[in-house]
């Protein structure tokens, strides 16, 4: 059994590499693969601007796609196990809602702070900070509640309630804002992988890594939680601490991804299910790296499609993830006839 997993990992690794190169080879400007490769290793390219395109735009975008796909997949996996619910995703804790509230306040609430400030406020960093602050505050509220509540399901419902409250506030804000502001907000909601410069990517990567590290230390408790909370306790698991760490990891991953790339739909929910269809196990020691690879691959593919290679258009990544992914999950479930978890 162990050996077959090794092959699956090897194959997934090769697919990931392939998708990575495919992703940076495709774009609105067609660049021959030889020159893509040359610009990667720092050799000269036939047209000088190609090097800029590859190094300054496509490469960070591909890395962003890997971080977003793997991070969302893993946080989805954590939530599905913690809440024992196949429908849970990274955003059940109200993290996206918090982020969208932050962004909505910056974009649409800017006029409230006064016209002069408005121009200053709406920069990319301010959006990132607003989204982070928003998701952090919601996270804080959920954490405080989860320390007091004994029932894990209550946390799920509280997360959903936070979502409703923030959605309502966003609606109120939208009602009073101009068409331009609305458009800007909606564009943020489309999600975007291609907006990050290297220094932003570095900040992204550091927070992401902390989230991944915490997830890795939670592997054992996640496996124990498969038995249910009472059995987990009888096996010596410190339930509150493990729950806190799992929620923290998810929040760091999903929060920073939403802050930097916008609310990416579907990936977090679907990737763990797709992975379980291939890796027939519930052991998180296998599932966690598998979800990592799978998430990265799917996100790279979605991004390649969203680029509409050789055309000047770029489709919203959020639409592509749902358009590609939802039918795949439906197909998988119809074929297998059950939602395994």
């Amino acid at each position, binding site marked *: 059994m162990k050996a077959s997993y090794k092959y699956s990992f090897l194959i997934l690794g090769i697919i990931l590499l392939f998708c990575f190169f495919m992703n940076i080879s495709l774009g609105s400007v067609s660049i021959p693969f030889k020159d893509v490769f040359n610009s990667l290793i720092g050799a000269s390219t036939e047209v000088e601007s190609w090097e800029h395109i590859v190094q300054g735009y496509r490469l960070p975008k591909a890395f962003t796609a890997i971080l977003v796909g793997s991070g969302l997949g893993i946080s989805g996996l954590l939530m599905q196990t913690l809440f*024992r619910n196949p429908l849970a995703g990274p955003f059940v804790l109200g993290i996206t809602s918090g982020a969208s509230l932050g962004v909505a306040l910056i974009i649409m609430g800017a006029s409230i702070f006064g016209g002069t400030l408005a121009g200053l406020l709406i920069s990319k960093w301010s959006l990132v900070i607003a989204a982070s602050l928003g998701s952090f505050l919601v996270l804080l509220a959920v954490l405080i509640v989860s320390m007091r509540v004994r029932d894990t399901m209550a946390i799920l419902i509280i997360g959903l309630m936070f979502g409703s409250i923030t959605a309502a506030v966003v609606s109120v804000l939208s009602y009073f804002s101009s068409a331009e502001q609305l458009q800007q907000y909606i564009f943020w909601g489309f999600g975007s992988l291609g907006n990050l410069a290297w220094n932003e990517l570095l900040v992204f990567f550091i927070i992401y890594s902390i989230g991944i590290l915490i997830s890795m230390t939670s592997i054992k408790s996640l496996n124990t*939680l*498969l038995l249910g909370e009472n059995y987990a306790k*009888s096996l010596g698991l410190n339930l509150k601490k493990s729950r806190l760490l799992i929620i923290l990891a998810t929040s760091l991953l999903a929060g920073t991804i939403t802050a930097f790339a916008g609310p990416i739909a579907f990936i977090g929910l679907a990737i763990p299910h797709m992975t379980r269809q291939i890796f027939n196990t519930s052991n998180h020691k296998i599932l966690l790296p598998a979800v990592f690879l799978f998430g990265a691959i799917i996100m790279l593919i979605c991004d390649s499609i969203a680029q509409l290679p050789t055309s000047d258009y770029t489709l919203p990544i959020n639409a592509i993830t749902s358009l590609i992914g939802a039918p795949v999950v439906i197909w998988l479930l119809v074929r297998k006839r059950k939602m395994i978890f």
Partner: protein
Amino acid sequence: MSNNNQHIVLKTQDLAIGYKHKKVETVVSKNINIELHKGELIGLVGANGIGKSTLLRTLTKVQPMLLGEVSINNISLDTFNNIDLAKSLSLVLTEQVASKNMSVFELVALGRQPYTNWVGSLTANDLSIVNKAISQTTIESLKHKRCFELSDGQLQKVMIARALAQDTDLIILDEPTTHLDMYHKAYILKLLQKLTRDTNKTILFSSHEIDLSIQLCDKLMVMTESNVIIDTPENHIKQGNFKSLFPEDLIIFDSETKSFRVNK
């Protein structure tokens, strides 16, 4: 059973159980003094709502005791940390496992969690204990099946194997025979009896199968509104302890056949 001076695995002294809600105490039962010895099979019987679950929850530190003292292997329950308790006491609960996608082997192996490293890797020793637990419960043929493919009876055996893999002196089962047919009820209790003989572990279970428990258990804990009495089934019958178990206007205990029957 043959030797009452055997090592005491679990002991309670003047234990009072119940609930405390905003300083209002609801006492379910008090002055409970029991001793469970090594290698014994003990059945806990009593009517619905009499407090069997509360007693088991208190003995397993799921719920705080109101008064008195519980000790496992002469160590007070209060001084146990989570991991040490998990190495002394394993449970089989009535609730279903959260994920039924696990293979039987994976599930039984989770019993080794208190002993494994941070990522839960199984050592050769862990593997041999897991395999031993699987063979002791005769579920070798199910090893690679997934839990959703199992019947209730098979699943109960798997859960018992998991508790065995946890390698504790004491195993406590909460109503292990519910949802099972007559054959599997007897099968599971017989299996528990065999395990106490083979492994010298102490097994305590709550059950409504009084007839079967009388036949198979070394000791029975009879729980009524007034007290908890632990003794051998024969002594219970002699002293007529089963008569106070249920209101006698409907069912009565027949000492001849060692079973209950409806008072027609």
